[in-house]
């Protein structure tokens, strides 16, 4: 293995931070979803890299599960975004504020 494990961790952390940044700054629900996907993929990078590092396949298999789950999550998420648009005529996540305090 030529690339040290730390680089992978740094990469994944960068991805995670990018995703987090997106969540904190984007108001569009779809961009919000995409940012979450980036964070999930950051975890996947980690899992695969560590699987390689530890020499067992657990992480890689789990990464497959995680992707499937992320897809399911997006499916639900898109459904919710859809009804959000129907009700609020917008996909801005900061618009629905009928309930607070």
């Amino acid at each position, binding site marked *: 293995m030529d690339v040290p494990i730390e680089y992978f961790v740094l990469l994944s952390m960068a991805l995670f931070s990018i995703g987090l940044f997106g969540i904190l700054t984007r108001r569009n629900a779809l961009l919000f979803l995409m940012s*979450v996907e980036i*964070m999930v993929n950051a975890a996947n990078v980690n899992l695969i890299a*560590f699987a390689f590092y530890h020499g067992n396949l*657990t992480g890689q298999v789990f990464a497959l599960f995680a992707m499937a789950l992320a897809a399911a999550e997006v499916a639900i998420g898109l459904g919710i975004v859809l009804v959000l648009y129907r009700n*609020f005529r917008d996909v801005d996540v900061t618009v629905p504020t009928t*309930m607070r305090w």
Partner: protein
Amino acid sequence: MAVLELPQWTALAPALVFVATALALFVIDSINPHTRNRSLLAGTTAVGALAALGVTVWFMLAGVGTPTAEGGLGVVELFGGQFVVDQMTLFFTTVVSIVTALVAVASYDYMADHTYQSEYYSLIMLAATGMAAMAAANSLVTVFIALELASLPSYALVAILKDNRGSVEAGLKYFLIGALSSAIFLYGISLVYGATGHLQLEAIADNLDGADAYGGLLGLGILMLIGGFAYKTASVPFHFWAPEAYEGAPAPISAFLSSASKAAGFVIAFRVFTTAFPVEATTAVIGIDWTTAFVVLAIVTMTLGNFAAATQDNVKRMLAYSSIGHAGYALIGLAGLSADGGELVMGAAMMHLFVYGFMNTGAFLFVALAEYWGVGRTFEDYNGLARQAPVACAALGIFMFSLAGIPPLGGFWSKYILFTETIGAAGTNGAMLVVAAALVVNSALSLYYYSRLVKAVWIEDPIGERDALAQPIGLYAAIVVAAVLTVVALPAFGPIADAAQQAAAVAIG
């Protein structure tokens, strides 16, 4: 009871019953699309939940999970340790299945006019499957999958009133915070995996000492796992979704999420932290006792929940915040763990979750009833309801006083035991004294807003004229059963306490 002769995989029978029921509902829907036969659908759901309950109780009585030394059948491990069926599994599966049954019965009336009946019930069943699986999960893989299995249908359920802005908003917020939290959780899993090289919980514990070089990584991973659990149990700082989700969701779903889902969140937290991260070994690696985090979270969660609940005008939202407060009480179970045990505190927390399952479900179902009547949402709107519906309001009184922890109701005993065990744990961890003090202060405060609701219902005069109130059979039945269970929890407290303490002792090992 010939449990032994069954194949090993049948140990997961409760979860399998749930999933089978969900599939049965799909089948019904495909034979007769958009069926409005509520009796059939709600009945199937309730029967499925009760069957799961029956199987669970049967397992318990047969001795599944009881150590073989005590004449039981021992803990059942499945799929290479990915799942485990022990007393804690069965204990929490009981909670989940009872709450599911109550919710199904109550939904019969509440969702009467809804278009998508079979989808609603099958989503409930799938979420219940996820929760039952959470109770049995013994690897971070299964924990994550089960957690998502419970969460994804929940998002849909919260937003299921598609034309109701509140429901949609609640679903959106729940989903967004949930997605963020599960991403954090997943990243935490990846870090733990990176540090130890394993995802199976016992294997993680065995390889902790090998993670010396990655102490910080492991610590961050554990903290992120805590975040995931905090989200599922609606604890600070991952609680933000809860008030809105509970307020906006259909009331039976609020009951379902705040009781069953919270209990399931706690069972994975209990299991992961007791099995994978033994206090002593983990402290040696990450340099700090992770119970510190739970001490802080428990205090902040119960304080925030109760304080915010105190000034609410909306009953459902008050219950939502109170639910956060109770999550804080249950967190004490993890805060009280220590190198030399703490199973008493954890057992007490499990007891509290058990009793809480009934009283909180009942309280939300009363709100469901009020919404069914259409009397309004605020305390004032509830004024004088007792004159028209004394039975339901008497049940509400039981729920409120039990939630507040007034003797002799079940909520008092669980809170009392939690308190005494917290004091007991202060011997090894001085911070527990602060936790105990916070518990008392918050309980006192909670009495204020719980009794306020009872006062509104029983003492105040109605603001305006109100039409005669219907008496929906399903909702009434569910409320009465929940009330009876809350009261019966008192004489039954000995066995419940024993079961919880035993489960906790076995889990801690």
